[in-house]
């Protein structure tokens, strides 16, 4: 049924594209709303009739994966949710996958956020996506949510020397001194790995500038696609790896399923999103080709005239 649905959708989309091409060749106007409609169909069809691709993790994604894999059990991993609901469809899958992976490896996780909206998303993710798969993990012993603090780079500038100055308690108003995860952790320099997930400001870049480089702390990124090209120059000297956009999330989920049988049946939103991504990209590429063909034809016609 799904295959039939996607075949019918493809016929409709590419039939429509041919019709648009003919219309453009005839130098007739194409309303911009027609283009929006095509993108909508290209995204909606693979959601209604899902199809997925197999993904192989690239070196830059494997950098993060291998680091979490190689850290000894009980290592301290700090994961920062620096995003809002608008960015969530893109970076939430990688946040969930990395958190699950770290819990599976027995690391102690400190969750925090530099965005006010990140705290609510973090609490929601922990309760609905991450912790249901790990009923044995306990708050304060295996993980802790210290939430959000206002101050952007100022927060990072403080926690590089002292966590407790900026975060005296966790989100439940429990003193950090009485939380097991924080045993031996005085500053960000005492964590073994930092994963910054986001794409705005403050975000992954600020983590490198204020934590990674001054403290010589290994940092991995999970970033929105829009900012990924600006952050790749930090790899590999300043960050251990980058998950760029939903493609990075899909690669990470794929690697997680290959290496950990426990996650074979887990929800993989990153991999699911690659179907709509692929079809939408093909449609956009088609529009670029149509636009260029029509442009060069009209220019040649003008020259002849």
């Amino acid at each position, binding site marked *: 049924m799904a295959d039939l649905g996607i075949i019918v959708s493809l016929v409709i989309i590419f039939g429509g594209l041919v019709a648009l091409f003919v219309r453009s060749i005839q130098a007739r106007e194409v309303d911009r709303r027609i283009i929006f409609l095509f993108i909508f169909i290209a995204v909606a069809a693979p959601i209604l009739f899902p199809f997925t691709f197999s993904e192989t993790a690239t070196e830059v994604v494997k950098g993060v994966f291998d680091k979490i894999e190689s850290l000894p059990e009980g290592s301290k991993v700090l994961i920062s949710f620096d995003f809002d609901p608008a960015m969530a469809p893109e970076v939430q899958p990688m946040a969930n996958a990395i958190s699950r992976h770290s819990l599976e490896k027995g690391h102690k996780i400190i969750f925090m956020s530099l965005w006010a909206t990140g*705290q609510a998303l973090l609490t929601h993710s922990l309760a609905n996506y991450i912790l249901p798969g790990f009923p044995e993990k306990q708050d304060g012993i295996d993980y802790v949510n210290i939430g959000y*603090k206002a101050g952007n780079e100022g927060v990072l500038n403080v926690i590089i020397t002292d966590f407790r100055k900026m975060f005296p308690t966790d989100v439940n108003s429990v003193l950090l001194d009485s939380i097991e995860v924080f045993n031996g952790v005085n500053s960000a320099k005492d964590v073994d790995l930092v994963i910054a997930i986001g794409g705005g400001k403050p975000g992954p870049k600020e983590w490198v500038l*204020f934590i990674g480089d001054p403290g010589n702390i290994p940092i991995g990124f999970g970033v929105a696609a829009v900012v990924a090209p600006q952050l790749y120059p930090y790899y590999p000297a300043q960050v251990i790896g980058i998950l760029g956009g939903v493609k990075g999330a899909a690669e990470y989920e794929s690697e997680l399923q290959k290496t950990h049988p426990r996650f074979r049946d887990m929800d993989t939103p990153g991999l699911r999103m690659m179907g709509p*991504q692929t079809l939408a990209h093909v449609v956009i590429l088609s529009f670029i080709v149509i636009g260029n063909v029509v442009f060069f034809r009209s220019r040649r016609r003008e020259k002849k005239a």
Partner: protein
Amino acid sequence: MKRTTYIMMAVVFGLFVLSWIYKGISLQSNNDHYILDGFLVTFSAFLTLAVLSFLYTDNPFYKFAEHLFVGVSAAFWMCLGFWTTIVQNLIPRLSEGVSGFFKVPYLPGPYNFFFFIPVILGIMLLMRLSPKGGWISRWPLAWIIGTTAGLNFIRYLRSDFIKQISSTFVPLLGGGQHEWQGIGHFFSNFDLSASGQFVALVANWVIFLGVFCGLVYFFFSKEHTGTFGRASRVGIWILMITFGASFGYTVMGRISLLVGRITFLFRDWLGLVS
């Protein structure tokens, strides 16, 4: 307002109520708060469609969603800032009684006047709301800008300037795990995989030539002719490829957001997919 606008609003309101009833009934079996949850899902769907309706044309529903978003965002950030910073960080360090009132653990310690400085600066910042005392808010604003500029200057100089320049000095004949051991060794171990020596060498040459030619393009003290002009031409190609990659990633990001919204509409609102 035009008569058609009233009709349109009445239709949207009717559809909203119908959707609320439908969602409430569908959630009734496994949810105690089905009336509230039905309303929230319907309202979220309404806001999503209101924002997307801008693609057709500007309209009152889009305006409503836009204004609501800005207002709710500002209120949300302010409330969370108050509860997480003033209540959790400041009050426990100032007063045991007030800490008890807000149910946060008191942090006993020596009296420190410096805790009051951010309070004073914060109040000064709020003076912007006063018609006559608005100028007072410029002082804390100057403090914020000065501190941020000072902090960022050092960090950017180290991470974005010095470290980025040192990252550009790459071994052109291989280094690290790809140490050059002669042409014979190179060809006998020729490997086209991403982790192989050939790809590492090509990557290093691309970085070297890309940076060099990119800098040549921005060097305007010499006319871009001859060899210099050709290097500049390569530089502009490198820049164009970079912009193309950025555009591709931006498209991917925007499509992901659209996937998120359409998935919400199809799964949570209409129940078309599981």
